[in-house]
């Protein structure tokens, strides 16, 4: 058996260390080694976006990242979005707009939408749809998700003003 490697990384701001086999994906490391099960597996080949996390400031599908690649990286997952019991405006809007049913796609949509709003605080519907094209949802039909992102954007702008 290939020996395990030690990986030192930062997850949601916390310095974190784990052991993994090189063939384990970052997704498997998050879920099975670190028990951060918020990040979901859908397709395991880069198409569905359920496993989306932020790595060194870029959105990535964690099923297409090898565990050892996290060495020295900064990783942000869905677990880092709420502040304690205080939901992020996106999470609140997803609940209010019923933008989830089974919820498997939701962590990926939240992580991706959060980055969109950080880059573009007032995206158009077209911009939201294009940005989220890497995230599939088999339940909601997308419209509710788009509405939730728009609502969160509006609320975040009001808080700032």
């Amino acid at each position: 058996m290939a020996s395990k490697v030690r990986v030192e990384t930062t997850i949601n701001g916390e310095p974190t260390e784990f052991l993994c086999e090189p063939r384990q994906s970052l997704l498997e490391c998050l879920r099975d080694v670190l028990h951060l099960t918020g990040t979901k597996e859908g397709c395991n080949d880069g198409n569905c976006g359920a496993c989306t996390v932020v790595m060194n400031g870029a959105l990535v599908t964690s099923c297409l990242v090898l565990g050892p690649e996290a060495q020295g990286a900064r990783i942000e997952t869905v677990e880092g979005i709420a502040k304690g019991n205080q939901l992020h405006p996106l999470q609140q809007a997803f609940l209010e707009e019923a933008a989830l049913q089974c919820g498997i796609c939701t962590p990926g949509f939240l992580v991706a939408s959060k980055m969109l709003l950080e880059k573009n605080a007032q995206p158009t519907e077209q911009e939201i749809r294009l940005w989220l094209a890497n995230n599939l949802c088999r339940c909601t039909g997308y419209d509710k998700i788009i509405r939730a992102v728009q609502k969160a954007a509006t609320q975040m702008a009001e808080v700032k003003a």
Partner: protein
Amino acid sequence: MNEFEYRAPQTLAEALADYSAHPSAKLLAGGTDLIVQMRAGRKTPDVVLDIKHIAELNELSYDAAKGLTLGAAVPCHIIHNSDVVKREYPALAELAGIIGGTAIQGRASIGGNLCNSSPSADSIPLLIAMGAICRIASAKGERTVPVESFCTAPGRNVLEPGELLVSLQIPAKSKGTGSYYLRFIPRNEMDIAVVGAGVEVTLSDGKISAARVALAAVAPTPLFVTEAGAALIGKEPGSEAFEAAAQAARNAATPISDMRGTVAYRKHLCAVITRRALEAAVAQAKERQ
């Protein structure tokens, strides 16, 4: 996935020494092709060399004389958002925004797109049209290869065991030059090209003085259609010239029928997509005069 050893060389010299000692190793850039292929059991390397920590493979720099140096491992999201790429090579900035979706662009590199050497790879026709040159290195030395001579068969290219792609050199674009890549996909995004066309035209004194056309997904390798370029030179940019080039593209294509389209459909699309790409490139060339 099979077991393998993972190594992340920090310098080009280290990577080349390691790769020449283990030519059966696979090189990892963004992994959006490689990891999928390893998981499917289509590639079973004993060593994976992660090459994206090497400075030369991360270079993204512009010089008015030398043009753009694009490190092989630079991910698409960096290219898509780069001010100098947006200003000097708008078609390349746009291309980097259509490969996969946002989370694929966070990892996928143009070097990986080229080295994976799929006939449908989106970046290759544009790189050919823009006259990009590959800088290739091994422990024995370096060589350069124009992108149109790089791919040899589906998934195959001119890289010898122990050789890696360091960067792409894209010539600086004179005033009056416009480039464009257009693909046809049934969805709006996240799909594989049924046909793609990369084109570049240069206008001087109201006529086309230089033109290059290349196609995706219509032959075993990305196809450089010199006849289409020749059909444009010396002509006024307009429907007559575009139609001649479109027919040349159609005639050069030797597509297969698959679930994305039949031979006849793909040949028809070749002409349509080539003509539309030329219209867009000429519009850009006029803007940049």
